[in-house]
């Protein structure tokens, strides 16, 4: 960890993945699933994917992501 170039690439990959995961047509797919544990599947999926994206950002920028360089 710690190489600024690597961090930047990971973040761009996260951005691309997030854009694809949190967009149509994937959302339409989940829209057809009905409910999961009583909660609308699409609604649930959106929050889960969103949370995963945030976790990904936090991990990519882990504690020793060096800002100083």
């Amino acid at each position, binding site marked *: 960890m710690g190489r600024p170039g690597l*961090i*930047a690439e990971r*973040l*761009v990959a*996260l*951005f691309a993945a*997030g*854009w694809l995961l*949190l*967009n*149509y*047509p994937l*959302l*339409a797919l989940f*829209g057809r699933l009905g*409910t999961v*544990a*009583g*909660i*609308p599947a*699409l*609604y649930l999926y*959106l*929050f889960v994917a*969103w*949370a995963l*994206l*945030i*976790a*990904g*950002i*936090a991990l990519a*920028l882990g504690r020793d*992501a060096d*800002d*100083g360089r």
Partner: protein
Amino acid sequence: MGGMLDGWQIALASACYLGLLFAIAFHADRRAAAGASLIGHPAIYALSLAVYASSWTFYGSVGRAAVDGIGFFPVYLGPTLMAALWWIVLRKMIAVSKANRITSIADFIASRYGKSALLGGLATLVAVVGIVPYIALQLKAVSSSLALLQSFPGPLPPTGPVWSDAGLHVALLLAAFTILFGARHLDAAERHEGMVAAVAFESVVKLCAFLAVGLYVGYGMYDGLGALFARAAEQPALQALTRPGAGASQGGWAWLTLLSMLSILLLPRQFQIAVVENVSVRHVRCASWLLPLYLLAINLFVLPIAFAGLMRFPDAHANADLFVLTLPLAGHQPALALLVFIGGLSAATGMVIVETTALSTMVCNDLAMPLLLRLGFFRLAARADLSALLLRIRRMAIVALMSLGYVYSRAAGEAYALMAIGLISFAAVAQFAPAVLGGLYWRRGNRNGALLGLAAGFLVWLYTLLLPSFARSGWLPASFLDPGPYGQAWLRPYALFGLDGMDPVSHAMFWSMLVNCLAYVGVSLLSRQDAIGQVQAQRFVDPAHGGTSAWGGAAPAEAMLALVGRVLGPAAAQNLRRQHQHASPGMLMHEAEMALAGAMGAASARVMARSVLRKESLAADDMLALLDESVQAIAHSRELEQKSIELERASAELRAANQQLTELDRMKDDFLATVTHELRTPLTSIRAFSEILRDHPDLPAQKRAAYLDIIIRESERLTRLINDVLDLAKLDAGRAEWHAETLDLAQVVRDALEASGQVLRDKAVALEVDLPPAAPPVRADRDRLMQVMLNLLSNAAKFCSPQTGRIAVSLRREGDALQVAVIDNGPGVRPEDRELIFDKFRQGGDTLTGKPQGTGLGLPISRRIVNHFGGRLWLEDAPGGGARFLFTLPLDAAPQTAPTSPLESPP
């Protein structure tokens, strides 16, 4: 009123809350002044960034969800996606902005594109037109929620007269707060710690309030979210809201995500908090995940609240915006309702305060100041304290913006224009995207491109979003929307050129971004960038290798520091001087300009700096000319060019000096070799004749006398040679003793002639003398001059024709000098030898075969003597063959002012 909450309770709670805000801001400002910042934690930075969630989020999300289901998500997913890129984009933006003392998003754009005042003004205009309605929306939200709180369960009362309107009171209070914490004093860094602390606190309050009402709805009204959704699933209308929308809204999802991505970066309030108020660039790391987490949390219960509201009030779709407040009220939870109201107040005030501060900075720095400078409204020389003027403009801008927002909210009422304005504002600031992002990463992006792109994008936005919203509010005829202006279907603002099937925001984004990007890229590629634009492009795109300043070495840094003193206070100027003690005037000038830029914007600071350069305040036309920056940057490049030329010249000089040294070294070797040779010749003959005398004691007396004569003559020659060598060495080393006096050169010549009389008579030389009885005085050493004259005379005697020898000596005045000529009728000196004979040991004729007749040092010594007294010694052709030696001596410049005879000075 009849509500369950008394008016005084609400008023007291609001007053206490606002008082708390004031206290926090005041405390944070005090701590900042004491150097113990309260906002140095990354979490505070992330929380203050949550100013993104305005009352449009707090109340509006639920309203949107009640109509559109999951359609509110992209507004918060966009910022999350952008946050993933913050570490790359925002950090660079912060670094560049700190290096250039950027004060606002308009300032950023103006500074990037050659400190263009025109571009800064346009960006400010776009921001104000786009954002003022958004401020109106916040004020409207406060007054609506207040009205609901007081009147529930009755219907909302009609809007009362202006003076009793809570919206007005809130606007006035917010104006006071903003002036107090956003424009109290002029700061070179343009940071407002009190404001940031208050906004961060408000973010906590609004999140808590929203989560509280969400928990109440989910677990108080229903048995958990599952139960809530199960109940909702019984209603097909609600069921539909959990499904993806139709095709159009699917395309709209991506556009909305993109729009919010850009907004979190480009909204004036976001730029203010994220960039201008940023304490440390390290905080970006934490904020990149903490802010998205905040947005996720505040959206958790949006859909449940919307569903609960729709189920509880099946006929109240119109007021879905206020479900957050209505549900606790309907559930007889006055305390919760009050908390929600305070949360909504937090969301609205936070947004209004930061946005107004950012906009007022822009209006002051990028609109008012350049305009005033252009109009020649004030002259630098006449204004002692510019900071007061700047602050007054800023405060006036705050009041004006707040009034504008309030008037707009009154005029709009319940109109569509107000409810839709959130996204319309987003789309307005999205027009900054090509100029800002392109400006950060694309060096070739230039002023003309940014200007045209922004203007075109803004006009398209105006036509496809703002004007239609007016039409839907009834301020424009409905025919504007359909069948289109002048009945032209292809001009329909929601389906330009027949492009239908998109929702209005996506449609507007598509067209405005299309023309904006095309114009920006196209014009940038087709037009040239001026010099200052190139310097700024370098500073923004590649900050590590950016040029520092376009100020030359002769910059009037002191005058500039004086100006800094007048704007930011004498202490700031002193600080600057101390920090850059060893900087060149150009660097100091640059630092001073940067300090000014922090207070009044890049474009205005540049104009001020240029006016200092011209030493005084300028007329309007001159100011206009000053806005063209190219001259200064060209001077910069010219300076660089000049430096490289100087460097070249210095290295050439070094080369020449080196060559000269080598030459001197060679000459020294030659000299030593010649001296050795010259010494050996007489020594050899002395030794040879001495040996003859020793080995042949029986030599006849006559021969012996002759040999002894030779020995004596050679010894004399040796002595003379050694004396001359020593003399020359002394002259060359500058250690010769000089006894300069004022003397009559004619007398010296006469003395010399007399001294050489015997030699001349021996050779039977005819002498022609042409001397004036008395010559004007010269200043020289008498003995040394005698030496020169004797040398020239003996030379002439040596070389003149053996039998018919003739020497002419003359003295004439030539301008400011006396000229002595010694002419002989000998063989003369070949033109190519005329300078050589002044070299050491060079003699006329062939020195190898002919018998040497002198030391070869007389002429070099004579030339050095004459040169020492400012004269010149050279050789010319005599009229009838032969040599003509000439030397000049300058007249004594001030014979009358000799200190010994002050009385003789002319009256």
